[in-house]
């Protein structure tokens, strides 16, 4: 992966830059020592690492603003960081950059059940936002699998999704407002608990901008009343085509489950070996979850059962109790761990139109043979967001490169059938150089003009999202 070479003049000014940061921050908020900055050298795309110039860990918006002002004046790139779980290299530093970590800003500033929002600092983890409101019967809907670790700030930057977004939407659909610190230190508020922009929807473009437009320090999030209950069913099929047709029929019938998850044979096998969830031997498996009262669940599951049975399933299993529900989800929830048990893996997340599912899975199978690398597929089937997991051996020379080439081919295929490169993980450095497959020069130019307005010096997370050649004239150095 190419990264721009670090700006030598910044490296030469390290002592001065650190001294200036030290002057505006509490003592323990600045880390310059290599032994300690090492923890920030990568995110969950751990094949790529680089030590930053320094790390700052502010406790307040004012400290964030002060640190940014110094970096702005010194012309130092800044990489915002939540929990570092990005799978796209979004939080990876360059040698001439300062990591600005929000991990110490975790406060709940206000909970308002009457108006159904919570106001939090963005270093707070996703799951602990729900934790703060669940006693009153509420939850925060977007639920990325990484929710125990990932921070709200990272979720906003990546516009993260989750297993239940089929019904509840992704981060942008649940975000009411933010406090944003611009690169020059200016603090602004976009939106608010009333959930509407005053003019242009700037909040809408900040969400998903991968830390390139500003540092989000606070957020107003919509919270929802918890449903009375939820229950999954499991259906096994003899082919991907039939499972795909079943998904289409469920949607056509007007049923809106909260989740429809899809696993193919390699993935089912790996999960069985790892978690022993008791999944059937079959080519494709669906987990479908519905919500509501007992009677409502029964009403929906009755319809779903009819549709599934019409597709001649290998197995159809309804959860009779909590424990059976847990076992149905167990394999799916351990999918990444199971694949990781077999080997190193790369997780892709292109989206395709659901109708293209059988074609895409067939092509991935063929490519898997051509590249000589195994791949398992987990898939948010209701919305077409795929997660092919390509297995490789990091210790075998050339394997990572082969895996990346395979991944790139899959993503190109996603675009070719009418989909996109990434459905929820973001572009980061990982898909940066594939952007030209999906976008024309004018498309990218329009996006970069937005960054020009928010961050004219291109100092915030500059070497991400856009192909380096496309952003070359804008980035410093």
């Amino acid at each position: 992966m190419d990264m721009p070479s670090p700006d030598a003049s910044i490296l030469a000014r390290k002592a001065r830059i650190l001294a200036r940061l030290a002057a505006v921050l509490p003592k323990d908020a600045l880390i310059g020592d290599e032994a300690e900055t090492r923890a920030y050298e990568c995110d969950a795309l751990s094949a790529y690492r680089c030590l930053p110039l320094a790390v700052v860990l502010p406790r307040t918006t004012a400290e964030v603003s002060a640190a940014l002002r110094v970096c702005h004046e010194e012309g130092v790139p800044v990489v915002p960081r939540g929990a570092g779980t990005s799978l796209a290299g979004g939080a990876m530093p360059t040698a001439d950059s300062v990591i600005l970590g929000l991990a110490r800003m975790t406060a709940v500033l206000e909970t308002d059940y009457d108006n159904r929002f919570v106001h939090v600092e963005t270093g707070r983890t996703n799951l602990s936002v729900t934790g703060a409101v669940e006693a009153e019967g509420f939850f925060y809907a977007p639920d990325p699998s990484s929710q125990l670790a990932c921070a709200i700030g990272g979720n906003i930057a990546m516009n993260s999704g989750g297993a239940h977004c089929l019904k509840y939407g992704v981060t942008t659909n649940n975000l009411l407002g933010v406090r944003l610190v611009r690169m020059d230190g200016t603090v602004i508020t976009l939106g608010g608990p009333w959930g509407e922009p005053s003019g242009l929807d700037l909040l809408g473009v900040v969400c998903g901008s991968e830390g390139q437009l500003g540092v989000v320090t606070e957020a107003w999030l919509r919270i929802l009343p918890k449903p009375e209950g939820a229950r999954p069913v499991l259906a096994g099929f003899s082919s991907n085509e039939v499972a795909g047709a079943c998904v289409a029929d469920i949607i056509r019938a007007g049923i809106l489950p909260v989740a429809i998850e899809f696993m193919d044979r390699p993935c089912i096998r790996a999960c069985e070996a790892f978690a022993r969830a008791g999944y059937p031997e079959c080519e494709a498996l669906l987990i479908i979850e519905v919500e509501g009262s007992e009677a409502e669940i029964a009403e929906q599951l009755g319809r779903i059962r009819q549709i599934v049975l019409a597709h001649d399933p290998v197995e159809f299993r309804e959860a009779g109790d909590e424990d059976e529900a847990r076992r149905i989800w167990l394999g799916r929830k351990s999918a990444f761990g199971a694949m990781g048990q077999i080997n190193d893996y790369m997780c892709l997340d292109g989206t395709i139109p659901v109708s293209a599912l059988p074609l895409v899975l067939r092509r991935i199978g063929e490519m898997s043979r051509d590249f000589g690398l195994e791949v398992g597929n987990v898939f948010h089937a209701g919305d077409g967001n795929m997660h092919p997991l390509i297995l490789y051996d990091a210790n075998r020379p050339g394997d990572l490169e082969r895996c990346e080439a395979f991944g790139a081919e899959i993503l190109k295929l996603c675009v070719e059938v009418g989909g996109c490169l990434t459905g929820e993980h973001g572009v980061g450095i990982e898909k940066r150089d594939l952007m030209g497959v999906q976008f024309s020069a004018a498309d990218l130019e329009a996006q970069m003009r937005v960054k020009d307005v928010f961050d004219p010096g291109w100092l915030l997370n500059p070497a991400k999202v856009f192909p380096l050649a496309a952003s070359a004239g804008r980035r410093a150095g």
Partner: protein
Amino acid sequence: MRPASEAELAEAVAGSVGPLVIRGGATRFVGGAEGEVLQTSGLAGVVLYEPAALTLVVRAGTPLAEVEALLASERQRLAFEPPDLRGLLGREGVSTIGGVAAANASGPRRVQAGACRDAMIGVRFVTGRGEVVKNGGRVMKNVTGYDLVKLMAGSHGVLGVLSEVSFKLQAMPEAEATLVLEGLDDAAGLAALRRALGSPFDVSGAARVAGRSLLRVEGMAGSVSYRLGRLRQMLAGDATVLEGTASAALWREVREVTALAGRPGDLWRLALVPSAAAEVAAAVGGEAVFDRGGGLVWLLLPEGQGEALRTAIAGRGQAALIRGAGASPFAPEAAEVAALSAGLKAAFDPRGILNRGLI
């Protein structure tokens, strides 16, 4: 000007020397842009409709009514129920889907299913520079690059002219019903709406019109009657139920703000923290229609009440004057935010020719 294709549209914008007024059906235009009219009605037609994927791609000048009829034939719909505001704004004409997107026109179901912007998954547009830009696409989950789809939603034509919009759709429910609560004052009637919205009973409309509080539930027949029953229990008091077409007719009136149509005075659109609604409305007087549990208030006031209104709101929301002298689709914004908006306007339309004066 009435370009018949996106390429013609790009040429028209690039070649234009003076300001342009972008016109879909002119049914929801607010504010005073001046210049040569650029009509989008030539850019019409459905590009792709895949019912099994809940996806629609449609050219911007396509009449809204055509889109709705097409979806209805497959028992699907736009989840955000775009309101027809012709009566309220005193307009005639044919609403286009591009106008809906450019105005982020969203109805009462926003409390449950989101706004127009939440259903928009892709756009194609021509910037003020005359360049064709696409963003998003036809799939529901997409975080590839910046989300210019959201930026274009509700931008009222100041950044670019939409040529194509993609939507995520919703299946029509089997049943709908409305619980009508009578005999409560505004404060209690709005509190009841907020309680219902905070319940697990999946309310898809929460409005208060002419002294009655209205709560809508939609879905499978059994589920609708169950939830209605639970809401009724929870909110004890005088209540009646309207079902099916009677319920639908009621929500059409809410959506179109029929109660305030054709009446003289300034018309304000307020976005509020819902619990502030009763107090704000009482403080300034006038006549109010409350939607979204009080999160949206349409307020009819005598002229010149802007200052009093903004004082009453005080940090709990915002107000836009949408009918009256000096009307604008936008609420005033903080100087730092306005500077960013102006920066984006200059970046996308450096000559300032698109709907000049609106922002």
